[in-house]
């Protein structure tokens, strides 16, 4: 293949350290995929599982989705949100990506001793409000406390039980050549807001996380054109690059994205330029990528734009039969390159 290729874009590529868990193993990129493939799936199986945002369960005739995510965001309070709201949105969205609406959430804290109770209160209140706004409730939970230095403030794990919405039959494996790739809104705001909120790099910005629940947007899309909706994914860790690569691999299709159509807000683009980050690798928390049948794409786009969450929805590419498992970007100047998975953790570059 003569097209510019993923590994060439990270300089240099990290050495494989199979013996030790690195930060990069949690980045949502290549190392995460490797850990999943080599450690997690062999244990929990099936080894060839399609990585979906949620598992589907049928219990006594009820069609359910279940999803869990641990949240370790630092700082806990960031422009546009906090770990409580994020943990609710993240799990509600993982359910939504499978076409399910949240019925109930479970929430477990791990707290470092010395944590201010007032901050815990704020986080609980924020999580409860986010759940209520998402039409659900936190019905059960757990609180563990670990010694000073044994955790970084507070971690939250949320698990959602969802009920499948009528007409939902989405899967990462369901993308078909000819389909259109839609994005529900601007990308990379969450990740850059978080980096900006950290002190170590000394940056300030007005960038605000996009964290929000997407199940209403999804419900509207399903109502408008359920069977045309083949795949949905929220581009969180690893960004749009990971979301689309996972779909390309799972569905054994190629995906082509038009760089000029990518909705990257100006300040977000500036932050990425400054730190040498690729916005395609940076997390969003209030945005979804959808793979939809071409003949219903315009209608779905119109439906998305009629919702608050999807008002800036755009078509950014299409599914092709060529280069299965690969995502290609048509660059602004007309070139092409492969959209790679983030290799390790996201590091600012000087080069």
């Amino acid at each position: 293949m003569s097209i510019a290729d993923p590994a060439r874009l990270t300089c240099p590529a990290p050495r494989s350290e199979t013996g030790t868990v690195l930060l990069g193993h949690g980045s949502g990129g290549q190392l995460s995929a490797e850990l999943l493939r080599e450690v997690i799936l062999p244990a929990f199986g099936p080894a060839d599982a399609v990585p979906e945002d949620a598992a589907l369960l049928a219990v006594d005739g009820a069609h359910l989705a279940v999803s869990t995510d641990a949240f370790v965001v630092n700082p806990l309070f960031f422009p546009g949100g906090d770990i409580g709201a994020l943990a609710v949105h993240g799990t509600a969205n993982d359910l939504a990506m499978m076409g399910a609406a949240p019925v109930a959430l479970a929430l477990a804290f791990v707290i470092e001793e010395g944590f201010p109770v007032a901050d815990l209160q704020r986080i609980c209140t924020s999580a409860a409000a986010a759940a209520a706004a998402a039409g659900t409730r936190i019905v059960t939970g757990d609180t563990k406390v670990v010694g000073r230095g044994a955790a970084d403030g507070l971690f939250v794990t949320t698990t959602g039980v969802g009920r499948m919405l009528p007409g939902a039959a989405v899967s990462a494996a369901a993308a078909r050549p000819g389909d259109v790739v839609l994005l529900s809104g601007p990308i990379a705001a969450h990740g850059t807001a978080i980096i900006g909120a950290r002190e170590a790099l000394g940056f300030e910005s007005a960038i605000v996380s996009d964290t929000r629940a997407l199940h209403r947007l999804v419900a509207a899309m399903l109502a408008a054109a359920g069977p045309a909706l083949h795949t949905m994914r929220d581009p969180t860790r690893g960004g749009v690059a990971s979301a689309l690569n996972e779909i390309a691999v799972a569905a054994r299709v190629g995906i082509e994205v038009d760089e000029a159509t990518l909705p990257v807000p100006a300040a977000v683009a500036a932050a990425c330029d400054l730190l040498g980050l690729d916005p395609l690798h940076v997390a969003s928390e209030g945005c979804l990528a959808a793979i939809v049948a071409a003949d219903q794409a315009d209608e779905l786009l119109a439906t998305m734009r009629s919702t608050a969450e999807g008002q800036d929805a755009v078509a950014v590419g299409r599914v092709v039969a060529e280069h299965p498992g690969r995502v290609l970007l048509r660059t602004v100047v007309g070139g092409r390159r492969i959209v790679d998975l983030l290799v390790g953790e996201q590091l600012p570059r000087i080069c």
Partner: protein
Amino acid sequence: MKYLDEYRDPVLARRLLEQIRHTVRQPWTVMEVCGGQTHTIVRQGIDELLPAGLRMIHGPGCPVCVTPLELIDKAIDIAGRDRVVFTSYGDMLRVPGSHTDLLTVRAHGGDVRVLYSPLDAVDIAAERPDRDVVFFAVGFETTAPANAMAVLRAHQLGLTNFFMLVSHVLVPPAMMAILDAPDCQVQAFLAAGHVCAVMGWTQYEPIAARYGVPIVVTGFEPLDLLEGVLMAVRQLQDGRAEVENQYVRAVRRSGNTAAQDAIRRVFRTGDRAWRGIGTIAGSGLMLADEFAAFDAERRFRITDPAAREHPACIAGDILRGTAVPTACSAYARQCTPRSPLGAPMVSTEGTCAAFYTAGRAPVPAGERQPR
């Protein structure tokens, strides 16, 4: 963003490409010196858009990749020590040393921190007198003024716990080394715009004259690179070998003299090893004697045996152009971009990595020719 978006204009890019196609009348090989320029070319797929006969060779301009293995090993050694805060630009953390890398050192408990600026390391040293704070000072002429200022600042503050592990390299000697190679294929250079913003371009005039190569000082955005290529091929087609400046908005002929003064005050010139290339005379900057107290190599006795590149690696042959990666016995077997054995696989812009990611199959053992 102003000064960025204008230089990514697709219409103008298409016009420049047409102009290049229009200009090129025979095959030419142009090297962009700088890794940042390589980055733009690869990310934008520009090389694919150039006319067939016009070949871009990627130069040695990635400070991360050319830092010698031995120095990476020293960094790893120092970073793993107690009471040391090891600070670095982010991309150095991934570079494999002989046995491990700085990311892994951090994972095992080393206090390794990513900074945006060397001045932040000085601030840490001032705040933590109980720690030795070491900054990994890599880079070309562009970065040298920043690192020089960090040393001057630490000196001004009277800090005795701030140290630099210095691996500074200089561009002109490397360009000459490339041109001096018997099988050199480079016919024109795009010189690195930010290096020239600091140094100006007078240093390049004798090179253009002596070797008869056009040199175009070039920026980093797609239009910059396309215009730089256009200016280079125009010179080639015209039979000229001059230094021209494409990056006029940022680069002046004499460069930034204040920055040059700081470099001269803090550093002295010396021989320097380049990973995968070897030692190039006069190609490095070392701390001047006046600032030897800030030298991390002096502060920390490194007792490790000398680093050694992997015996299977034929990087030398590859960099000289006498072998292709697929002929290497380690290629795509032990040696991949995720666990590279040699520099051309370390740098993702290196020849071995490029071959690998393009999916080229290794030559079966039986068919491999003895070299």
